[in-house]
């Protein structure tokens, strides 16, 4: 890896120290949240190059465009799909299935959130589900807090189940070459157990408080979910593309096609379907709108982060960290797996799991020789994914979806308090990690 640092570090300083300093400075600043994380990551990436740790060519090689392309493609597809009201439809339909009884609605919305999160990005899922939830709880005259709390938890739990459900999985899958099916076979079973196990305490916590009058439930039963579909033609098109893209992920492995290709092709195709009947001016507006819905802040953060981590990697810091970690766990793989699971969970509860996972990926990769090659690393990847994704549930700042829900709740006059959230969520997070621990132990160790 040292060969990549063909660039000369300024003033002849030590590349390892310079890259560690830049990386740590960015990390600390990201944690304090005083400055937007995309600004920080891009500044840090620029400094890595300007300070001579990386050349521009090396920096670009460090960017995982498969992750960025997959996220970008899915964001465009979901942005267009969201316009036609299908998610409102789903939420209302599921609430009516349980006769709008408050506790039933809580269960249904949690499960719908988990399902959608498994197939879409978590942030997108909560952006679509939370407004309808607020609407339904307002009609039922019940407090929205248990619903929002549960949706946060289930968006992170559901997201863990698949390759495309949560950014850490996308990064792990992309850089290690794990497929959609690998994630489904290895993570979905334990996630189903975690879901069931999380619903039980939620039921006992809230069942007494959540009651609604007959009149209130009737109001919700009068919702006409069919009316929520605003554009049936677009709905059919976007669901067809979404289904084709997911089928593509499942089948792609045998054809050696990367997920980014499938997602970007799907996005372009859906844009074509949505636009070919429009005039040039209207097309320009509509395409511009579709791209402006993309979360560029997240994508730019990824871009900077990949370069930052690559700086650490090429100056040998990651290899040294891996060595230290191996020494700490006595070179025992099973101990390392459990350490990665719990360490990732606790850290991800407090810091953004995206930079954490970006740092851990090369670190775990460099342990391959100690654990008998790439095959031996598999349980470590599952431990990292389970720890980083589920750990995000621990606190209100643990994952982006949590913050998005908190933001919307605040704007609707129903703020979620950090400590109130922590009280119930941290224990539920620990429960999910205990179950993951058990699962990894039984299945892989």
């Amino acid at each position: 890896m040292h060969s990549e640092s063909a660039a000369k570090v300024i003033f002849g300083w030590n590349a390892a120290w310079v890259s560690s300093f830049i990386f740590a400075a960015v990390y600390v600043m990201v944690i304090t949240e005083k400055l937007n994380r995309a600004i920080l990551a891009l500044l840090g990436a620029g400094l890595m190059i300007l300070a001579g740790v990386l050349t521009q060519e090396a920096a670009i090689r460090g960017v995982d465009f498969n992750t960025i392309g997959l996220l970008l493609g899915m964001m465009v597809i979901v942005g267009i799909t969201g316009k036609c009201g299908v998610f409102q439809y789903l939420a209302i339909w599921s609430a009516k299935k349980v006769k709008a009884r408050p506790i039933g609605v809580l269960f249904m919305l949690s499960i719908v959130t988990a399902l959608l999160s498994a197939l879409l990005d978590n942030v997108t899922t909560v952006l679509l589900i939370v407004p309808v939830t607020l609407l339904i709880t307002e009609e039922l005259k019940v407090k929205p807090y248990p619903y929002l709390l549960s949706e946060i938890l289930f968006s992170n739990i559901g997201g863990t189940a698949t390759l495309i459900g949560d950014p850490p999985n996308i990064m792990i899958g992309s850089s290690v070459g794990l497929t959609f099916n690998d994630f489904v076979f290895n993570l979905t079973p334990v996630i189903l157990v975690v879901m069931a196990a999380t619903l039980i305490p939620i039921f006992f916590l809230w069942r007494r408080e959540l009651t609604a009058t007959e009149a209130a439930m009737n109001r919700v039963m009068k919702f006409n979910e069919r009316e929520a579909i605003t554009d049936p033609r677009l709905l059919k098109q976007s669901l067809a593309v979404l289904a084709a893209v997911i089928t593509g992920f499942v089948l792609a492995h045998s054809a050696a096609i990367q997920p980014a290709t499938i997602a970007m092709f799907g996005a372009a195709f859906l844009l074509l379907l949505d636009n070919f009947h429009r005039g040039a001016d209207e097309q320009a507006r509509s395409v511009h709108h579709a791209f402006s819905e993309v979360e560029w802040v997240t994508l730019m953060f990824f871009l900077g982060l990949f370069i930052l981590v690559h700086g650490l990697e090429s100056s040998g810091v990651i290899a040294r960290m891996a060595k230290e970690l191996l020494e700490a766990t006595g070179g025992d793989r099973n101990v390392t797996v459990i350490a990665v699971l719990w360490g990732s969970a606790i850290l991800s509860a407090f810091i953004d799991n995206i930079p954490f996972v970006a740092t851990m990926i090369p670190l775990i990769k460099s342990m391959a020789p100690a654990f008998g090659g790439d095959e031996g690393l598999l349980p470590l990847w599952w431990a990292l994914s389970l720890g980083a994704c589920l750990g995000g549930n621990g606190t209100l700042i643990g994952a982006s979806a949590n913050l998005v829900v908190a933001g919307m709740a605040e704007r609707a006059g129903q703020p979620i308090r950090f400590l109130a959230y922590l009280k119930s969520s941290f224990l539920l997070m620990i429960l999910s990690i205990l179950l993951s621990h058990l699962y990894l132990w039984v299945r892989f160790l």
Partner: protein
Amino acid sequence: MTAKDLLNPHPVTITMEETFGGALEILLERHIRALPVLDSAGIYRGMFYLYDLWELLLPKAATIEGAITDLSFMPGSVEELREKVLEAGPRPVTQFLKDKEAPAIHPETSIKEAILMLYHHDGVLPVVEKKTRRFLGILTPWEILNRLRDKG
């Protein structure tokens, strides 16, 4: 030409003690859309808009920008809405003032700038003294239209 030459210096105003219900009565009686709210010293404190009524009548989620853009799936009755208005009636009008409102303009604000603000906010512009925010009057599309029709 500036706001000073155009403003209506004697619009209907209300005090900070006015209730939501009372303010609605005035809007309905006078067929106007907005009421400047002044404190006892004549300082401008905000604008009560018809818009505040719509916000009260809608579900909260629909008033969050971009969250829910279509409510056709939700039936509603006049009784249910009337109940909401009755409930909010005794609340002081100051609870309904928000920063979403058009910002205040000053006597020196040029006519072009005032038109630009009407273009963006389509409503009623309060005119206040720059330093003290003492209320001087309002500028509505009608003052401008009147002036445009005048030949002299």
